[in-house]
């Protein structure tokens, strides 16, 4: 589970953001909605350990990750947080399977073929494991992005605008997939989006 407390952030020469406190239990999900410019992405980066808040606490799995810096933060991020980006990012010189191995390695985790196989099975792309990511279809690339976020068995899965480029049908499928995977891994899922179509799909939601 994770919860935030009194998180504030100010850009050096830019706006300040005050975020409401919120929490999400293991295996559950939350959607963070907001229009452009309300500090949605900033919150995502703060939750993801990529930006340091000026103030406040972010508790993930019983650890306040706000004060962490340097290597400790890198490790924490790699091990406990999985991020699904809006665009599919990957190491283009490595195959799907190698990408997943490498993600685990960066997080300081041991090699785990079984985990990788299971994740690929769950996302219905096990036959693509030896392909280079750029050879996958867009849908497969999206699944692969989720696989990459899940492979380290994180406590928190963050998704950045996962549905913005999808039609209603695929939007629903994508959200179902994310929810299902988070649930199965007993991870908390936080979706940051401006897509109000998602509003009715989540019971736990906050609007910035």
């Amino acid at each position, binding site marked *: 589970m994770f919860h935030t407390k009194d998180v504030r952030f100010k850009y050096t020469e830019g706006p300040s953001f005050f975020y409401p406190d919120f929490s999400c239990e293991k295996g559950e999900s939350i959607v963070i909605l907001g229009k452009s410019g309300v500090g949605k992405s900033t919150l995502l980066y703060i939750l993801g350990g*990529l*930006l340091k808040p000026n103030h406040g606490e972010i508790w993930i799995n019983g650890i306040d990750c706000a004060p962490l810096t340097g290597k400790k933060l890198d490790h924490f*991020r790699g*091990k406990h947080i999985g*991020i699904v980006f809006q665009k599919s*990012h*990957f190491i283009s*010189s490595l195959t799907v399977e190698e990408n997943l191995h490498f993600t685990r*390695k*960066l997080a300081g985790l041991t090699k785990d073929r079984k985990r990788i196989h299971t994740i690929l099975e769950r996302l219905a792309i096990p036959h693509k494991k030896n392909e280079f990511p750029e050879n996958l279809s867009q849908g497969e690339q999206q699944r692969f992005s989720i696989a990459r976020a899940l492979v380290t068995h994180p406590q928190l899965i963050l998704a950045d605008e996962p549905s913005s480029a999808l039609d209603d049908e695929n939007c629903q499928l994508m959200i179902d997939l994310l929810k299902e995977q988070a649930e199965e891994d007993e991870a908390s899922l936080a979706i940051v989006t401006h897509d109000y179509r998602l509003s009715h799909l989540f019971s736990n939601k906050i609007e910035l």
Partner: protein
Amino acid sequence: MNAFFISWKNIKKNRLSSSLSILLIAFGVALLSILLQFNKQFTEQFEKNQAGIDLVVGAKGSPLQLILNSMFHVDAPTGNIKIEDAAFLFNPKNPFIKASIPLSIGDSYKTFRIVGTTTTFVEWYDASIKEGRFWAKALEVVVGHAVAQELNLHIGDTFFSSHGFNEGDLAHDEGAPFRVVGILDQSGTVADKIILTSTESIWKVHESHHHDANNITAHKDDHDHHDHHSGHDHDHEYEHEIKEGAYAQSSNTTHNDSISALSEIEALLGQPEKDITSVLVKFHSDKKRAIPVINMPRNINENTPIMATAPSYELNKLLANVASVLKALSYLAIIIAVVSALSMFISLFTKLKERQYELALMRVSGGSPLLLSIYIITEALIIGFIGFVIGLFLAHIALLFLSAMLNSQFHYSLDAFRFYKEEYFLGIGTLVISLIAALIPAIKAYHTDIIKSLQ
């Protein structure tokens, strides 16, 4: 899945630009390595073949040509000289001259030069008889190690020489042939690549154009006999000194059944009107800097019909010329090295922009900034290393061809599989250059802004 694996994968993915960088590095390394090998091996061969010779005396002409011909057995002789003109070089009373040996050059067998000389020649070049014995009479030859191998010559084999140094030159196929009586061991000097015989043999071959071979032998024997007992201008004291003095060392050598150096020189001096090509002279080591020794070449050149030249002086001039060419080429190699470093830098730097998502993703997944720098540096080092290995390989293959070419033309060869420690330094240099080329991209990778890159 370490840095090496990830970097290698990336090199493989960017085959074209990686290959270009590798190729440029390889060319630079190859050129430098060839220059290095050339420089080292040629200097070494030059030094080995100097054999402590202080002065070369021959017919007037180009001093360098005389040295190349008499010491390195390339190029044509400058002409012939009369023994009487050079006789003073064989006078053991001369306080400066330690020893001298005559050379008669001009004939060959299957492009290997036949040199008429004395048995002392072999000592000077640190060679010795491996098989058989020295020549005891005219037309007996001792062949150098390389000659025996390449022409598959054995003791007892006979052959006719040809006039000149080329394959198709006029053959001396009248009269008796040369007979192999000895084979030298390998000395790594010019002695490996020539056929040695007595001066008399050379005269004999040339005389046989005009006489029946048997008659010549008879005539020759007569002549020798005549020399020993006739009223030739022989100084008995001189003869005694010859026995006891400078040439005595030659008779101490292992060739019991060969004619002694003493009688070889004696026989030579007995025929003052005959021709030889040149004389190699060694001075006493403690008198090399004596004024008369320093002035000797000039004195000879000014006061006699023959020419004397100091190999150290001429060879230094030649080596200085060669060195300046090598220097110019090494500048070219350095330019190639710089260009290759630059190409690697540009390739890494531009790829960095394409890879910023990947680098940011690595950071998101828990990779430290240092790790990203390590990947970039590892990639450069791998490229540098491969370039170095390919360069070295190319250089040694090129040396193999060059050696074959030199061998067929001059009977000189290069050892293509010899490695010098400078080549390892070259390897270190390549890696350092690669590291420098990767430095700025690595620093930039270190400072990858995750958020900006992922937006």
